[in-house]
């Protein structure tokens, strides 16, 4: 792959890149995180070069999952002209999942991603982002995952993007003066052509492995409290008991792609007539009804496509660690079909295909 060394910090370098691509008229727009108001960040489709100054491509925040936002942009049709999108690896994987689900199109997209040092809970920057930025930069440079990150980021094993055209090297790099960009595809090389002097190179796999191991080290602490023997019905009830049934988790989830969620549809609604039966049977009933049904049901629906981005936990107003449970579960169910959500955009989602000779053990 070709390595382009671009002057400036990652943010400056990516802005430089996007400006260059616009100037060269290689792209019509850039889809990237930007500071839409002081201290407020949102994904933004920028068509005017002047606005690139507000772009904050690598700020360690994920107010929404960018993959889901790109699907908003391309659900009905591909973008009409070349457009650069800057996404974190889990957002990219969400995008690929959504492509398989007919919710997004990749045509005309230049996929820019990064080796990801994780993001912080969105709420944690309400008091101002600067302290976070400092801590995060140091952590990135030394390639360690610090405790301010989202739980799912701290245990993320997929922080190196798959299927990106360009990868910005963040993790374990000194990026104060210059930032490395790796053109991973022929398309990437074509777009970056002339950006800056380039050289052939390979990623520093040794360092990336070390980071991977370090994150794996956090898994027990973050995930194991949701092991089977810790859950069960009573476990689920103590985890989800405080749920206020706002469904923010599914609303924030990039792979919950339905317009009307089954659990909000008429089909899932309780019928007044059945309440008496429930009382006969149980003597009581938690309200609103169907909390566990909703959460476990959602696991049945999306665990195969879960990319572990952590949006669900981030959006939960009562701090339920939804993402940790999903991440643990997703590893298991996806492993069962030797599948990794979003590792590419072609692979069939396990439930949309089958093999005649498989899973003999389940049919007794």
């Amino acid at each position: 792959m070709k390595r382009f060394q671009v002057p400036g910090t990652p943010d400056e370098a990516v802005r430089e890149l996007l400006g260059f691509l616009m100037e060269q008229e290689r792209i019509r727009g850039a889809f990237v995180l930007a500071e839409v108001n002081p201290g407020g960040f949102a994904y933004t489709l920028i068509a005017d070069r002047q606005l690139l100054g507000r772009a904050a491509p690598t700020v360690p925040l994920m107010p929404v999952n960018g993959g889901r936002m790109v699907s908003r942009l391309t659900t009905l049709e591909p973008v009409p002209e070349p457009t650069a999108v800057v996404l974190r690896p889990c957002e990219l994987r969400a995008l690929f999942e959504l492509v398989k689900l007919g919710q997004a199109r990749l045509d005309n997209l230049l996929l820019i991603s990064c080796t990801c040092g994780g993001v912080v809970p969105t709420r944690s920057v309400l008091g101002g982002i600067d302290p976070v930025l400092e801590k995060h930069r140091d952590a990135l440079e030394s390639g360690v995952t610090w405790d301010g990150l989202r739980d799912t980021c701290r245990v993320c094993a997929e922080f190196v993007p798959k299927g990106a055209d360009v990868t910005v090297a963040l993790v374990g790099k000194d990026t104060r003066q210059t930032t490395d960009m790796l053109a991973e595809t022929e398309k990437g090389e074509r777009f970056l052509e002339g950006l800056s002097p380039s050289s052939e190179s390979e990623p520093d796999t040794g360092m990336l492995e070390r980071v991977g191991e370090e994150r794996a080290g956090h898994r027990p602490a973050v995930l194991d409290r949701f092991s089977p023997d810790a859950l069960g019905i009573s476990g689920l009830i103590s985890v989800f008991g405080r749920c206020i049934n706002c469904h923010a988790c599914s609303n924030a989830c990039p792979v919950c792609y339905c317009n009307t969620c089954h659990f909000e549809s008429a089909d899932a609604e309780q019928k007044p007539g059945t309440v008496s039966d429930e009382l006969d049977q149980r003597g009581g009933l938690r309200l609103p009804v169907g909390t566990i049904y909703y959460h476990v049901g959602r696991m049945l629906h999306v665990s195969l496509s879960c990319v572990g981005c952590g949006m669900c936990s981030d959006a939960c107003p009562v701090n339920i660690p939804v993402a940790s449970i999903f991440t643990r579960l997703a590893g298991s169910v996806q492993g069962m079909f030797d599948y990794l959500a979003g590792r590419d955009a072609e692979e069939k989602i396990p439930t949309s295909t089958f093999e005649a000779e498989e899973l003999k053990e389940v049919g007794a």
Partner: protein
Amino acid sequence: MKGKRIPVDGSVNDTLRSVLALLLKATDAVMVPSRIPSKESFAYLLIRDPKLLEAATPLAPVMPVQGARALQSMGRGRGGLPGILCVLRPCEARAAIELFKRNQVDLEDVLLLTIDCPGAFPTRDYLGNPEEFDRRFEEILQGKQDDGLRPDCKSCVGFSLQEVASDVHIGLLRGKPGEVAVVHRSDRGERLLADAGVAGDDGISDWEAGVEKEARVRTGARDSAFQEMKGRAAGVDGFEKLFADCVNCHNCMRVCPICYCRQCFFDSGDSVRLRAEDYFARAQHRGGIRFPGDMMQFHVGRMYHMALSCVACGACEDACPMDVPVSRVFAFVGAGVQEQFGYAPGRSREEAMPMTTFKEDELHAFEDAGGISAPGTTETQSGKSKDQDSEGKVE
């Protein structure tokens, strides 16, 4: 007004619990806030088995779920529910009645019991340290002031039986903390109390006086809150500052008891599925366009949809992951438009919702050049926001 005075035995909640035990005998089930098994929060519980009353906490320190939504979750439409006595805060009861008017809850055999509401703490604060807040809430029940309550609660003027069409009400005799007063507010309520043996005709004027006194305090708090909001919610810029941290999760809508649509228009395909070409056109026009977009359209639009029925319960603000002062804005705007139409949500089950009726001779002030010119009201905001859309800024 007459009622039955019941001496407090143990804590206020203990007393309320024992009252409920009596009422449960006279009805099929009781719906009441209860402590969840893991203890750190509360959920509504529909109770038939008296044993379950142990977990019941009629006055909980938090309101994680708006009771009207809990009631609605048992099924939309009318008819079918057994005789259920719902223990609700006044704001929850108002919302329940607004939903009833929209055929979203069944009140045929359901009775509403309201209790003088001391307010609630923000749920996330509470979750941070339940024991501490439990202690503080007990003190509040003893009549102590606490500044940690939700802003909406501190400025709530509907904390007692003002303007809420409940069937039974329980007053906390602030003048005489040693007692509570049970009063009926409808024939069905009267029958229930009689059947349960908690009817009475003790004098309760001291309580009524207490309520009035408290009302004066709260009204003062509300006026200053509205004054402040008048300043902050002025114009698009002020409005945008208020919602600056909004991440468009729409959680405020999802927990709002009045937002009863299965599919919110602002989440519907019509709203969120545009052609890429259109997005680009808009981006071209402004230089850039944020995703998800239409933050202002959502909040102002939602206001159009529900402000007339807003009961200022604060559920939206409580569920906002970004601490946007949603409910303070909505309560402020809601009060304005409700006053406009002389409408009070939840005051009566029969009163028609303003947008479902009209008078031939009304609102002439809005004709021609008339209307409202003062800043900080929905009309002008939306009006301005239309003008300002075209400015070269990320919207």
